[in-house]
């Protein structure tokens, strides 16, 4: 007779508790009013406040000629490590209508402020590593010769392609009389040696609807709204630089910074040439949690 030993399933109570505590923190603690820009693709030079965590969810609905339209989505966790360094982690996925929903990869980015004080033009260095599949459709960056035709395939086929990319941006941004103007030259390298460097750009301009705050707390005051416009697209690659076979978008955008600590962003991007998707409708919801770093440090026994 052989005794059968049935092992108990491992119970992960401790991580469960930590997870619940973190979620509780996110929902009920330490929120902070954010003054966010309306940009979805372009970056200005403002970093996350030190110790603050911003959780952001974004959606993009895109039209696709010759195939199914899609809804791509991503979540960002953006943490202000110091006043000059912000680090961010993304996970993204997409649903292609009449096809499937797939997880498409993750990104890890860091932004470093290069100058201590404000200048006419403020440079920030952006470094990102991304591990994504060919089915990635968030279109956060349009690079090289990216175009609508690249997506005209099933998710099963697109997922076979795996990309490990390094992306570098120089974020140049200037704020004057309430206007912010940001220009982002972008270079991307698929880490496969055979792949060339690719080039891209994103530019944006925005302004709050009012430059003076009202004395009362309000949801619909014009000071809570920031309107702007973005333009982004590819600039070819090292082998064939230029505008031929590239796609470009123009996107009016608006951000609504609510006193209840939420920010809502809306953007409708219009394709500017035949290689572009005709329409990219985007929206995003974000919330900033100040003092998050200190509270987490305290949870793990560190000095809060």
């Amino acid at each position: 007779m052989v005794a059968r030993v049935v092992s108990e399933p491992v119970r992960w109570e401790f991580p469960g508790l930590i997870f619940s505590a973190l979620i509780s923190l996110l929902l009920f603690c330490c929120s902070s009013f954010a003054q966010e820009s309306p940009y979805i693709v372009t970056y200005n030079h403002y970093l996350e406040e030190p110790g603050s965590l911003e959780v952001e969810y974004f959606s993009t609905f895109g039209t696709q000629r010759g195939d199914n339209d899609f809804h791509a989505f991503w979540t960002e966790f953006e943490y202000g490590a110091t006043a000059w360094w912000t680090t961010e982690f993304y996970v993204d996925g997409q649903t292609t209508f009449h096809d499937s929903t797939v997880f498409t990869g993750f990104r890890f980015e860091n932004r470093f402020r290069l100058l201590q004080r404000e200048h006419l033009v403020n440079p920030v260095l952006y470094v990102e590593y991304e591990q994504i599949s060919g089915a990635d459709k968030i279109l956060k960056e349009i690079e090289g010769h990216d175009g609508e035709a690249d997506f005209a395939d099933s998710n099963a086929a697109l997922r076979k392609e795996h990309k490990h990319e390094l992306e570098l941006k120089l974020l140049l941004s200037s704020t004057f009389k309430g206007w912010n103007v940001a220009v982002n030259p972008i270079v991307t390298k698929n880490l496969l040696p055979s792949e060339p460097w690719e080039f891209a750009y994103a530019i944006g301009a925005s302004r709050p609807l009012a430059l003076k705050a009202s004395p009362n707390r309000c949801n619909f005051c014009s000071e809570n709204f920031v309107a702007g416009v973005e333009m982004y697209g590819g600039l070819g690659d090292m082998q064939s630089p230029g505008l031929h076979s590239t796609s470009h978008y123009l996107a009016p955008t608006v951000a609504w910074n609510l006193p209840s600590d939420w920010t809502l962003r809306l953007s409708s991007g219009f394709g500017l040439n035949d290689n572009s998707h005709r329409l990219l409708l985007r929206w995003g919801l974000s919330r900033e949690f100040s003092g998050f770093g200190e509270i987490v440090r305290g949870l793990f026994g560190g000095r809060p």
Partner: protein
Amino acid sequence: MRTHSALSRFNGYIGFATIAIVAFGVVVFETLRALAETERSKSTYAALADAPEKAREKKNPFEGDTQAVAAGGKLFEQHCADCHGKKAGGTRKGPSLLREEVQQANPGTLLWILTNGVVRRGMPVWSKLPEPERWQIVTYLQSLSAHSVKPDPH
């Protein structure tokens, strides 16, 4: 035998490299900590002296405006209170703004600090707030008095 000897030598190199890396890490860490300590020991309010003459001379367009004080108070609560305390008395993250150094500073100096931040000490730049909003915060700060407002008990 030769293989065993080569393996031992390889392990020796790895061990030596590990010790060297750890020692280097400790030296770098301690140096950075000493530098940070030196930085901390400098006066908290020294950055006020960095404001250039032209910035100091700027006049507050909202001086004496009670509406601006109220709006500035709202903005302070939204953007500044987390670090400087709800009553501006300071917290572990940010210094008191009720101290004489701040209260006696020119409005232009305070605007300059708000605009440029003190990045090396953890205060971000606040030029993302439009200039009139930054002036409203300055107006609010200067309406506070060390006699009427007690520091936060942080």
